[in-house]
């Protein structure tokens, strides 16, 4: 009896497994066509000289690692890497601080914040706007004779328009600020989910023991939030490395001034002007490796602390 039941049970599992694979199939096909094949061909083409000059197609000629050598021997790529990181950090630091604060407030039952859902929705809204539209809006707001400049001038704070897009500091700050505005809502929701998952009895126990709210946050919330925190950090880092639309639109693709707001992906985009698939492929592979190493490092670093 028992044996027979077991048998039919395991064959059922096999039967159901088949359906599992069938339901996975659409995803696998889409993934292969739109992700896997382009991914492999990107790596493949990065070893070729392959671009267009006018109507002429140059290549593809196999040139080994020459694209990589050209990219890495040029100081520019390091400069663009630095730009990318500076602008990511300028956006990420305020983002993580504000998100932690908001998530802590929202998840604290003793505060009894009214209209929570309203605020959660509102802070998420900037993320719904296309980054390009958002950047265009800021471009107009901060133009030399835009509303921000005229307000500052009318208030008597400055005597002539401040050129926001022509100064490295202000241009980078604007990019950072926009990324902060667009993403702090998303981060808040993620962190909030993490905080709600913490057993409330821990907080209650701490309170009974006389811990201050500061102590509760640093000694209980933060350590238990670590997995989510690491997830936020890594996704934001990857997103930051791929920063493109905001600085691209804000500086009309030039990374002005003096290419100090040119990110790595904007640099990659420059190579697409002449369909230089070899060089842009090489740059993509370098980015992939950098992203991999950084994500791994962040993961190792934070999970080691956990032990």
């Amino acid at each position: 009896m028992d044996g027979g039941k077991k048998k039919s049970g395991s064959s059922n599992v096999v039967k159901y497994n088949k359906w599992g694979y069938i339901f996975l199939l659409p995803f696998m096909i889409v993934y292969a066509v739109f992700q896997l094949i382009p991914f492999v061909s990107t790596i493949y083409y990065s070893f070729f000289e392959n671009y267009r000059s006018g109507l002429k197609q140059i290549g593809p000629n196999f040139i080994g690692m020459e694209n990589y050598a050209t990219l890495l021997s040029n100081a520019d790529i390091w400069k663009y890497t630095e730009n990318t990181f500076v602008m990511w950090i300028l956006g990420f630091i305020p983002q993580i601080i504000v998100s932690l604060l908001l998530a802590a407030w929202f998840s604290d039952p003793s505060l009894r914040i009214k209209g929570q859902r309203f605020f959660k929705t509102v802070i998420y809204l900037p993320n719904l706007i296309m980054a390009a539209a958002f950047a265009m809006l800021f471009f107009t707001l901060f133009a030399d004779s835009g509303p921000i400049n005229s307000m500052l001038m009318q208030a008597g704070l400055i005597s002539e328009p401040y050129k926001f897009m022509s100064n490295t500091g202000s241009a980078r700050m604007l990019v950072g600020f926009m990324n902060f505005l667009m993403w702090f809502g998303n981060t808040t929701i993620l962190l909030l989910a993490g905080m709600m998952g913490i057993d409330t009895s821990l907080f209650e126990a701490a309170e009974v023991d006389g811990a201050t709210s500061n102590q509760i946050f640093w000694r209980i919330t933060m350590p238990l939030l670590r997995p989510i925190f690491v997830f936020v950090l890594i996704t934001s880092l990857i997103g930051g490395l791929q920063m493109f639309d905001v600085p691209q639109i804000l500086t009309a693709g030039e990374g002005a001034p003096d290419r100090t707001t040119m990110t790595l992906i904007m640099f990659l985009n420059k190579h697409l002007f002449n369909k230089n698939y070899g060089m842009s492929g090489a740059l993509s592979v370098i980015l992939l490796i950098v992203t991999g190493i950084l994500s791994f490092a962040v993961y190792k670093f934070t999970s080691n602390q956990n032990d």
Partner: protein
Amino acid sequence: MKKKIVSIMLTAAMTATLLAGCGGAAADTAAPAAADAAAPADEAAPADEAAPADEAAPADEAAPADDAAAADSAADTATASDEGKVLNIQCWNEEFKSRVTDHYPGYEADASDPNSGKIGDVTVKWIITPTDDNAYQNHLDEILPTNESAAADDKVDIFLVEADYALKYVNADPAVAMSMDDLGIAAADISDQYKYTQDIVTDTNGKLRGLSWQACSAGLIYNRDIAKEVLGTEEPEEVQEKVKDWATFNKTAEDLKKAGYFVESTVNDSYRVYSNNVSKPWVDGTTVQIDPNIEKWVEDSKALVDAKETNTYDLWSDDWNKGFYPEGKVFAYFGPAWLINFCMAADTEGSVANAGRWGLCVGPQSFYWGGTWICGATGTDNPTLVKDIMLTMTTDKAVLREIVEKDSDCVNSPSLLGELAADTSFGNKILGGQNPYKQLADGAEKVDMSKISDYDQGCNESFQAAMKDYFEGKVDYDKAVANFQTAVKEKYPELSF
């Protein structure tokens, strides 16, 4: 539940406003589109009646000119019926379509499809690809090299190009644009055209591969009120004396500054004037060179910016536009007839153009801006029709005069412009009744475009962008040039310095 409703409503409100924007725009564009579609339909009726008579004439003329074709085919109509049934025209906006619709004898617009029409029994298809993000050129790059092997009805017959990248298609190897010899257009047919318009589409072997109906020679468009106040005169000849060369122009800029005016809206306004008057092309072989006149632009512009006599805005930006109104305090723009007629807010109450207070003079150096060239695509199956469209639209004086009257284009015919310049009854309202054709005709005569290269568009754009940092004092000149070189190498890996 209630909370969920709140968030759903908030999101819905936001999406609704987004969509409302789209809806409004769609409705707005739909209205003129419908009006456009209606207009040709209305006009089609008289055109129909006129068609047999008009069409017969060029067909008859074509027969003796084209001896071989005439010998092969018994009747004129046979020549036409041997050729393709579909004429595909590649373009990036409505301009040429409206010119052909309005002025090409025998063209019948299709009332149901705005991008289609008929000439005789040949269907004309307009394929419009916007220029944004290089989309139009990418599209041409894709289809032109394989045009000869394309299916008959898909073959490109005519494509349009702009001056900035014309040479890319004219010099293409193997050729993608038909030469005048191949089309059977003789030099005598096109002698009444400005030389510069032909220089732009002449390949390295001296073969002409395109024609334009426009001569977009340009001049200095000045604000008459400011001229009167600062220079003491608003007459074009006298103002010209104050801007006759760059030294005088820069001196006038000082006087304007003292009175609180900018001489030009941005340094990029004068860029074309300098870059049209270079002594060597951007690229020689594969070496990029910076012409002395371009260097002079940098030097003059830096001085103007440092003295706060102009700004560093990008062309077409909201900052640049400010001078179209008196509060903008801009003395002059550099531009052609189309800028005056269509871009300077003439319909807006309170603008300088609306009050008719602009004037036009030749300026420090002659230059041109814009224009559209018609090229016959290699591999076309309608060469006779292509030839006729090119000749009719660019050399038929009656058609050109219609274009001047209806569309205010400055046309590519020295003799016609000469007649217009002498016509005292003609005056442009925006220019305070001034007849601009004398200045425009003078300018077009002097424009010399023999020093262009395949890489001009990329080089010009990168150079202006790189120099902006220098003008604003962010980098020194050498660093700006280095940035320019980096940008050019990204665009054209085959070039060196």
